[in-house]
């Protein structure tokens, strides 16, 4: 039965995409019915599959359920099947992708209702769902790669959805090109895997790569780094992080679904999926940790000064993705997936909430022209406040549990430097989130007076997804990590689910899992996490105000100015995103442009001219020589006679000597 149901999960949005792409234009304002319905049914089926997978029902069991659709490339030794694998890791991803995907579809009905490209938007969204589901379900690296490129394509289409805006078209191109850089690495990694193992099936190749004493033509750490290059591109890790903030040019539901909750997690999923390769790859895993935590602090530092509400969230996403990679890098695979899930929900919530804010103040994204919105759009305010508390890491909301687990694992696995930077990032996270809330919802209104009277709460079709996302943002952390009854078996629900997936990797790393000590080291780390989160939050309150019931502080712009004036370099660096865009401009546009211009000149003047001159000489020679060809028989005869004379004459001369 599952051999039929699993392909149907992909088939439904595929049908929705094809249907809407073909006849959507004629459906007008009803264009959403088929795509949203398709994803809704896919959600129901998906949850049934997930439930069976996670409870270990037949035929899933411990190792997951693999189903083979057909043989795609049967070319001798190179054999690729299209098949799906549903194990517990895929099930966790399916929960995130399908749930947030469905809620974003519903939200888009309201958000996009005035857009002329209504049907097109839903067609693209369904295409994205197809690609993302294929990505998490694929059981072969090549199919995974196809899905990898397809999510890149749908991301490109949706970032550039408002293609008449030059900035959107440019951002779409930027995202596509930067992603390609990482994808080259991933493609090379897949080739390396085939060279090493002779198969592209994910499970088989990992088994062969990590087998004892396997003779590998390409060392495993090279494979790991190449695969990680792909993950860096898709998950926007330094130095390929530049595309994600610009991707906010797309419609806000897209930012929530693709650039916060699902697609950017693909890199984390990929590394988690291939965790034994990294575990066996020696120091490659430390590179993952270093790049992850560096991206985390880099992006967090930028998020502290940005004024565009969506950009703050975008840098926050980068920072949280950095956390996930840091977690993978220290060998805490479960914590990474934990954070992936909780982050997917609360960041999806925050983005949809920001969309609702933008909607309310008539497409204004600059937080300097918001403020005091709490009483005008109370539902948006409450849900976004929940999301902010969750991401800031205040217990008992979701973000606290996953973030604390990452930091705790980093500390206990001997990566104190990762822990230390992570703690700093945690302060910053709490700070910039409450700066966002303070600037947007609290304090005086700075909204354009012309817009002010028209501020309205979004329709219920947009509010319902927000509240539905707020529930997991509150509860998910507790539910997934509660160690005691009735949910856990001593390790927490998620750890129990993912144990079979990560067992191999953990064994290769050789890390023992010490018991959780609430009154020992774990309790101490937990306390530190809470303290720094509260610290960041209070700092933001002091500077940007707070108006919770019973707690009223006014914003303090003079103090903000004084503080920024004290560290002018850091402030400018943060405001200018550490000049990475300028650096890329210098390297690729200015210097690259010069190199390109020189290559063009060389091609034109040297390569082309050589060829052209040879041709011109031939033509000129022909033009001259054609005069010889008079067509008159007697001229030819004259030639023969002259030749005869010359020959006879030279014979005589030679014979006379």
């Amino acid at each position, binding site marked *: 039965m599952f051999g039929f149901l699993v392909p149907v999960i992909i088939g439904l949005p595929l049908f929705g995409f094809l249907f809407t792409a073909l006849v959507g234009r004629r459906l007008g304002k009803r264009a959403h019915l088929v795509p949203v319905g398709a994803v809704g049914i896919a959600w129901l089926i998906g949850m049934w599959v997930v439930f069976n997978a996670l409870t270990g029902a037949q035929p899933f069991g411990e190792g997951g359920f693999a189903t083979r659709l057909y043989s795609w490339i049967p070319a001798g030794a190179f054999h690729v099947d299209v098949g799906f694998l549903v194990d517990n890791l895929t099930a966790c991803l399916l929960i995130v992708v399908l749930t947030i995907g469905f809620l974003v579809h519903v939200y888009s009905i309201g958000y996009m209702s005035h857009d002329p490209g209504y049907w097109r938007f839903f067609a693209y969204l369904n295409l994205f769902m197809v690609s993302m589901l294929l990505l998490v379900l694929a059981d072969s690296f090549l199919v995974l790669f196809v899905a990898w490129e397809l999510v890149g394509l749908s991301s490109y289409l949706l970032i550039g959805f408002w293609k008449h805006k030059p900035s959107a078209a440019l951002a779409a191109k930027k995202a596509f090109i930067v992603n390609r850089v990482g994808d080259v690495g991933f493609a090379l990694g897949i080739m390396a895997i085939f060279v090493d193992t002779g198969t592209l099936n994910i499970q088989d190749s990992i088994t062969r790569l990590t087998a004892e004493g396997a003779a590998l033509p390409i060392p495993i750490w090279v494979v790991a780094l190449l695969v990680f290059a792909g993950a860096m591109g898709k998950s926007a890790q330094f130095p390929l992080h530049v595309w994600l903030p610009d991707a906010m040019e797309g419609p806000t539901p897209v930012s929530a679904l693709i650039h916060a909750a699902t697609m950017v997690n693909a890199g984390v999923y990929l590394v988690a999926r291939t965790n034994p390769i990294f575990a066996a790859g020696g120091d490659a895993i430390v590179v993952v940790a270093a790049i992850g935590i560096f991206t985390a602090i880099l992006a967090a530092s930028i998020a502290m000064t940005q004024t565009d509400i969506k950009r703050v969230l975008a840098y926050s996403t980068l920072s949280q993705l950095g956390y996930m990679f840091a977690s993978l890098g220290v060998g805490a695979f479960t914590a990474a997936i934990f954070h992936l899930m909780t982050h997917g929900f609360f960041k999806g919530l925050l983005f949809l909430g920001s969309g609702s804010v933008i909607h309310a103040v008539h497409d204004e994204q600059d937080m300097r022209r918001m403020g005091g919105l709490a009483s005008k759009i109370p539902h948006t305010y409450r849900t976004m406040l929940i999301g902010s508390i969750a991401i800031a890491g205040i217990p008992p909301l979701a973000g606290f549990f996953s973030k604390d687990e990452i930091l705790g694992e980093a500390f206990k696995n001997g990566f104190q430097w990762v822990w230390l930077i992570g703690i700093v990032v945690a302060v910053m996270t709490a700070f910039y989130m409450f700066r966002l809330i303070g600037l947007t919802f609290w304090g005086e209104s700075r909204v354009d007076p012309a817009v002010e009277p028209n501020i309205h709460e979004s329709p219920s079709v947009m509010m319902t997804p927000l509240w539905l996302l707020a529930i997991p943002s509150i509860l998910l952390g507790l539910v997934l990590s509660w160690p005691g009854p009735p949910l856990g078996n001593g390790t927490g629900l998620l750890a129990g689910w993912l144990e079979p997936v990560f067992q191999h990797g953990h064994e290769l790393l050789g890390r023992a899992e010490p018991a959780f000590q609430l009154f020992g080291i774990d309790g101490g780390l937990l306390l530190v996490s809470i303290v720094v989160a509260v610290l960041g939050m209070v700092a933001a309150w002091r500077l940007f105000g707070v108006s919770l019931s019973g707690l009223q502080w006014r914003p303090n712009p003079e103090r903000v100015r004084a503080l920024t004036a004290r560290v002018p370099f850091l402030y400018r660096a943060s405001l200018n995103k550490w000049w990475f865009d300028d650096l890329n401009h210098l390297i690729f546009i200015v210097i690259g442009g010069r190199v390109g211009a020189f290559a063009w000149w060389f091609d034109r003047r040297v390569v082309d001219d050589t060829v052209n001159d040879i041709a011109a000489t031939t033509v000129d020679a022909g033009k001259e020589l054609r005069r010889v*060809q*008079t*067509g*008159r*028989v*007697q*001229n030819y*005869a*004259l030639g023969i*006679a002259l030749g005869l*004379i010359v020959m006879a004459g030279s014979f005589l001369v030679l014979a006379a000597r």
Partner: protein
Amino acid sequence: MIRVIAGAILAPVFIVGLGLIGLAAGGSRSLDAYLVLSGILFAIGMFGFLARRNAISMLMSIELMLNAVNLAIVAFGSFIPKLGAGGSVIALLVMAVAAAEATVGLSIVIAIYRNRKTPLVDEYDAMRQ
């Protein structure tokens, strides 16, 4: 024009040159005298072939050149005993070829004449197109 000038220059060069060689060789009963006659005949034929525009005249010039060669061959045959009958055989062969050539040449000329209504070769310029 160029044809006439070339012919007018070439023919005297041949005739005078070969005549000088013959005189230098001396003696009417020698091989050289025959060869000089043969050379003169050949030069006249060549001049005719290059200078005349009429296709029939050109064919006749070719016959003259062939016969000049024949004369030289027969002279060699009779003055050099070692060749035996070989010289005469070759001369007969040349005659046969000449006869065949004349037949084919004349029929081609007539065919072209019927098409182009002219015997003048410089108007046969189809090869140039």
